[in-house]
């Protein structure tokens, strides 16, 4: 099976290399035969990588510890669910998985464009497979997951198979961790498709609306998946690491946020190009930036150039990524500079107070946030290079720099949709803004009366109400018009309104999700923490919760041994919950990890951690956090994802347009035949 996997990788590399050459020459010579051949090679690249992935999964599932990767990242007693996930638990497997996802995206891009964008496709295939050549070379030559274990003795080198493997890293043995990396990778890798279309458009000088319309959906899908991946990562950190938070501004977390932010900027600015033929250069820059940051994120995770809690992913492949980043930058920027004449704006701004300028400001804020996060992430390196001193840049820095920018962004999330294309009059501004501003003001006053004095929390909650009223107002106004003119009831009106323009109303749902996320973030300001040594019968009061320790039990599973605290919680004198935080000791890896007990409600989470046992007294060390509003972060993330799905769904207008185009095509074909 190891040989089969290696053969699959060699064949995949060969097909990718051929597809690059055939695509580039096919595009240059306008040879449809060569282009088709390149496309078939790219599809074969997918088939060969699927073979390699299937071979590695087979080795993992059958406990073949002769394979070095399987011995390192799996063990006999690991649940099947986690064994499947061992594919992306280590460097070699995750790079193979990454390359396989790239091949899936490439195959989909080719199959969905087999009758469209024919001039672009040879170059799109060449760029996709160029990336494929890089990743499959890495997997084959630098981080091969099909290496076999051997033992060198005086008698020579012999094949070696250990009786059991080292097992999966204990912190990765959590359900959201199983889907977090695939989602994140689908987000990172997917950004290659818009990049490939942008490069194809630049090479062929086909820089009209076509490539931008094609890539919008190809950007939305990885953008949504990247967002979901970030959210699942936060959920994992919250439930497993036991420090009571979900985001620590770790360099690797920041690396995943950067392409998501620049992708958000692109998804907004692309609308200006579609509607007004403006910002053409800027959109290409954003596509390049997003792809660059996706690869840069991987480089940051793998290279170990910055200290991170994700140190388990580090290796020596950083230099290869830096070379690849230089190639991407040189190739794309040169191409962009050569095509500047073809990227002239078709229109001008009618007014500074318009939807277009709203998008400009949105892009400004998002890119400023990208800069602030990138600057903070890289500052330890810069400081070391300039003054020879390593400084730490962690949460206190990012909270002070990123929160004000985030608040501006939140404001624009509500204000942007109220601006009209071309020009918004002062009267219209006043009419649209007055109600949201009143609601925000009343919220602020009520919060002040309630004793809320935390500046950022107050600002966040007021702005959240402002944005929510702005966005819900848009739904209400549209529905009211339909109810008046069409005689529809409210539910019908909302449904038809949304389905008529899924892109617009899906976008509004995304904005509502962002509001929920920010409400969740605001809760961090009111976090409470307590810590105590407890044994059976001991009580601990935290806010209005009373925790009673009912004892400590120990147990064994095939995979780990555990100590479990039994805690009964009452709230305001009433029975509230029974909580069982655990400390686990994994047999294979000989590592200890916490399993936090969380009781979520819409207002706050009660979060109980068994930190360990006190050596002197033998009592359980119990940490308790009361985390307000955390659940809204998860709900907000899901709403953002669902809103994106809605925006991806073809609207009634789009379907009608497609129908007309299809009818016209049939008519043209018929007249040609006649």
């Amino acid at each position, binding site marked *: 099976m190891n040989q089969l996997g290696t053969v699959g990788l060699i064949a995949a590399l060969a097909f990718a290399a051929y597809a690059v050459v055939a695509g580039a020459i096919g595009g240059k010579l306008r040879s449809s035969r060569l282009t088709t051949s390149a496309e078939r090679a790219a599809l074969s690249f997918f088939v060969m990588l699927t073979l390699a992935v299937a071979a590695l999964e087979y080795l993992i599932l059958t406990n073949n510890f002769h394979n070095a990767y399987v011995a390192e990242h799996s063990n006999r007693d690991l649940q099947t669910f986690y064994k499947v996930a061992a594919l992306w638990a280590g460097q070699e497997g995750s790079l193979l998985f990454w390359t396989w996802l790239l091949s899936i995206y490439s195959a989909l891009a080719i199959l969905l464009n087999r009758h469209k964008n024919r001039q672009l496709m040879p170059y799109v295939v060449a760029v996709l497979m160029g990336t494929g050549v890089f990743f499959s070379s890495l997997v084959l030559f630098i981080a091969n997951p099909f290496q076999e274990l051997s033992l060198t003795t005086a008698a020579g080198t012999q094949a070696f198979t250990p009786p059991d493997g080292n097992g999966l890293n204990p912190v990765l043995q959590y359900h959201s961790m199983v889907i977090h990396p695939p989602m994140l990778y689908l987000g990172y890798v997917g950004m290659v498709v818009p990049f490939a279309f942008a490069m194809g458009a630049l090479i062929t000088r086909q820089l009209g609306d076509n490539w931008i319309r094609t890539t919008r959906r190809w950007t939305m899908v990885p953008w949504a998946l990247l967002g979901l991946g970030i959210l699942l990562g936060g959920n994992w950190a919250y439930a497993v690491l036991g420090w009571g938070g979900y985001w620590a501004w770790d360099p690797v977390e920041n690396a995943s946020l950067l392409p998501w932010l620049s992708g958000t900027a692109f998804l907004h600015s692309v609308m200006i190009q579609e509607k007004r033929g403006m910002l053409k250069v800027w959109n290409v820059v954003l596509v390049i930036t997003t792809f660059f940051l996706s690869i840069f994120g991987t480089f940051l995770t793998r290279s170990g150039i910055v200290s991170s809690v994700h140190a388990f992913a580090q290796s020596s492949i950083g230099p290869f990524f830096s070379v690849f980043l230089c190639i991407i930058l040189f190739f794309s920027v040169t191409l962009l500079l050569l095509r500047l004449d073809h990227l002239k704006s078709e229109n001008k701004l009618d007014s500074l107070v318009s939807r277009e300028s709203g998008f400009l*400001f949105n892009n400004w804020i998002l890119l400023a946030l990208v800069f*602030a996060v990138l600057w903070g992430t890289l500052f330890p390196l810069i400081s070391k290079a300039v003054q020879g001193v*390593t400084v730490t840049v962690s*949460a206190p820095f990012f909270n002070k*720099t990123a929160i004000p920018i985030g608040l501006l962004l939140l404001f624009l999330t509500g204000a942007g949709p109220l*601006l009209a*294309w*071309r020009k918004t009059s002062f009267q219209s501004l006043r009419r649209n803004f007055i109600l949201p501003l009143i609601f925000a003001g009343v919220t602020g006053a009520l919060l002040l009366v309630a004793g809320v004095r935390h500046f950022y929390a107050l600002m966040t909650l007021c702005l959240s109400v402002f944005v929510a009223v702005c966005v819900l107002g848009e739904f209400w106004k*549209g529905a009211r018009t339909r109810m008046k003119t069409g005689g529809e009831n409210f539910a019908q*009106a909302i449904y038809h309104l949304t389905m008529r323009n899924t892109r617009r109303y899906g976008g509004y749902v995304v904005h509502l999700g962002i509001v929920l996320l920010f409400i969740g973030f605001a809760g961090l300001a009111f976090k409470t923490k307590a810590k105590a040594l407890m044994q059976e019968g001991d009580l601990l009061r935290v806010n209005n919760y009373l925790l009673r320790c009912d004892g400590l039990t120990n147990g064994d599973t095939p995979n780990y041994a555990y100590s479990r605290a039994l805690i009964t919680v009452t709230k305001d004198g009433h029975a509230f919950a029974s909580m069982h935080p655990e400390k686990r000791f994994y047999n294979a890896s000989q590592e200890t990890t916490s399993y936090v007990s969380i009781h979520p409600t819409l207002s706050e989470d009660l979060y109980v951690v068994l930190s360990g046992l006190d050596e002197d007294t033998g009592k359980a060390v119990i940490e308790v956090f009361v985390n307000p509003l955390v659940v809204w972060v998860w709900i907000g993330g899901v709403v953002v994802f669902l809103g994106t799905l809605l925006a991806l769904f073809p609207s009634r207008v789009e379907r009608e347009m497609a129908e007309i185009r299809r009818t016209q095509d049939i008519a043209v074909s018929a007249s040609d035949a006649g």
Partner: protein
Amino acid sequence: MVSRNTARSAWATPLVAGVTTEMQAAHHKSQKGKGPRIWQPPLEWAAAALALCLCLASLTRADAPRKPTLESIGDQVMCLCGCVATINHCPHRDCATVAEMRPVIAQEIAAGKDETTILQDLAIRYGVQVLAAPPAHGFSLTAWILPSIGLLASLSFVVAVARRWRKPRPALAGADAKPVDPKLLAAVEEEMKTSGMTTRD
């Protein structure tokens, strides 16, 4: 065969977009010279002021003195055991570094020192990398000010670009505009009314 209704609603968006300009131009033409001009606040400057206020607010908060606690200092001090977390969040059970640093911080608090002084003392004792955020002096000051400078510089750039891209004043544009066909205008208004569309679509 495309039905009449399908074709009408499908083409409504470009029709509306095209006519909006004519409507605006006609509106400006009809308004020219009539009544006092309504003052419109320059929104870009309002946005700049808002950005400036938030930046200042963040700096003010950064400098605001707080009564130190073991918890608040612990969030700003890195554990040096190699865990890349603050001493409040070190994942290691019975971490020796945390066990050594906590009493030091507790002593400083008991001595009545403020947050800044405690952090300075810890930086002298353990090295500057013990601080979870770079100190606001020397080269490290650039870490703090560059994001704000970047924000304001890019804002000026965006405003400058927006001004450069702006069309000539609407009154001038309106002077060259053709009058709108009233039938077309009525059709568009009817279409917008029935579909719940606005100029924000």
